């Protein structure tokens, strides 16, 4: 099922270009990795997909619905979109604002009007999935960078989004935690979630992502390859290693 469709998207920052003529189809259940040098447009694309930014020109459709600035101006529609598309920020400091990890995770489900037992169940499940059980009563502000990443993912998962956007989710994690996070993402994908993550570390994501969208420094898509195809191109792989 075609879930996300981008046609000729351009995005301009006040004095630079963010994205240039980008077209892209993403189907439900895909595991996509956005790769490219810093400032090539990966984060900008994630912001557009999440509905935080509207493209300067071009069309963005989510599940058949055109997501335009006018569509997003309606608070209720925007909130529904946010429920279906979750995002973990690159700088997770900005994402954690509650006074305990359990509160942080319960923040989203609580707004959905769920019963407290259901919320409690979700919190426990999310803590377990992200291996954060021992952080339950800690204060998010005092956690280490890697712990914050995991808690941020848990708090987004608690809303049960269909699409998960992750901006450099592996930064600051130990090798073991990276493996754990990737395994979790694969499990989520297997249960039907669409995963779109930005990364510039090819080695880490090589084995898990199924599709690689490679940006060049002029904010355009350089290549859009399935894993099997990319494995046939050692030159490109070598180039990705040096990002």
């Amino acid at each position, binding site marked *: 099922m075609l879930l996300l469709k981008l046609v000729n998207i351009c995005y301009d920052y006040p004095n630079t270009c963010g994205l240039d003529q980008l077209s892209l189809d993403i189907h439900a259940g895909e595991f996509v990795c956005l790769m490219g040098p810093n400032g090539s447009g990966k984060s900008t694309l994630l912001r557009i997909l999440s509905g935080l930014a509207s493209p300067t020109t071009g069309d963005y459709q989510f599940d058949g619905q055109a997501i335009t600035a006018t569509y997003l101006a309606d608070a209720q529609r925007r909130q529904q979109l946010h429920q279906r598309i979750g995002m973990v920020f690159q700088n997770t400091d900005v994402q954690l604002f509650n*006074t305990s990890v359990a509160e942080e995770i319960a923040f989203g489900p609580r707004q959905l009007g769920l019963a407290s037992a259901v919320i409690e169940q979700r919190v426990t499940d999310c803590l377990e999935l992200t291996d954060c059980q021992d952080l339950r009563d800690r*204060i998010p*502000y*005092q956690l280490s960078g890697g712990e914050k990443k995991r808690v941020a993912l848990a708090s987004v998962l608690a809303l049960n989004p269909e699409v998960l956007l992750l901006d450099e989710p592996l930064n600051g994690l130990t090798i073991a935690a990276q493996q754990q996070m990737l395994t979790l993402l694969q499990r989520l994908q297997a249960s039907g979630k669409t995963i779109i993550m930005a990364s510039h570390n090819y080695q880490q994501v090589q084995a898990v992502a199924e599709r690689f969208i490679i940006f060049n420094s002029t904010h355009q898509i350089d290549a859009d390859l399935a894993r099997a195809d990319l494995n046939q191109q050692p030159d490109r792989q070598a180039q990705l290693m040096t990002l």
Partner: protein
Amino acid sequence: MHIPDNYLSPATCGTLIAAMAPIWTVAGIKVKAQIKRHHETLPMLGIAASLAFLIMMFNLPIPGGTTAHAVGGTLLAVLIGPWAACLALTVTLLLQALLFGDGGILAFGANALNMAVIMPFVGYACYRLGQKLHHEKLGLAIGAYVGINTAALVAGIELGLQPLLAHTASGAPLYCPYGLNVAVPAMLTAHLLIAGWVEVAFTLLVFQFVKKVAPTNLYQVPARTNQRPWIALLLGLAALSPLGLLASNTAWGEWDATELKQRLVQQHVSTSAPRGMVHGFHFQALFSNYDIAGLPISMGYILSALTAVLIFLLLIRGLQHETNTINH
């Protein structure tokens, strides 16, 4: 609460800047001592100034669909200490006046007195009192409310005095046209009813969050305080107070209190029949009346400003010597 330019007479502005000079000096000395204990206070002054800027531009919802904004004077005093808050807020106000056109350039002294001195210190005093009585949060809430309202009251008085201090021979005000009977109630009503409560809610919630999440990041009161800067502040203010009179003397010094009252009445009587209506709009005649200010007031202003600067410099000089001997 930012007073724009031309609402206060230059004499008032000069007096208030002169009054601020010793306060800034003492704040500088106090903050230097604070920096010795916590080095990060030095960059924190600037960062807190930008924090205050963001607080003042953030719209908070109030019932009824409109918005208000907090000032954050009391909050900053509790977070980084009252003296550091005084300096940080001063920088914020200067930035707003010079680069963003918020608040007047000449009225900078008045705005600094209201928002960078009265508000943080009144608020902080209430907070400390509450802390001593083991009702910290209550003290803070009262401090935030009383702090912003005291600042509003003083701003109202500053504005309301203008028709008395500066007017034409016929009583038409030269600067802020509203007397005390209008300016003070207007300022106080807005702050007592709305802005004060917004400030309380904002201050309490941020304080509660920081207290819970990182209690060590709150300002810790030093164990033993050096009383000398306080004495210096009092002496400085005492030395400068006659200057305030000097600066405004030329305008109203010849009246005593009862005459002043008569003036006020007369002014409001004249309002019922504005000259413009009685004599028709005759351009030349109208404006020739405004020529009351001239050589004496400007020279007095310059002289008093120069004297204030000199006293201020002498004060710094004296204090520098003292602090050096303490250090060695």
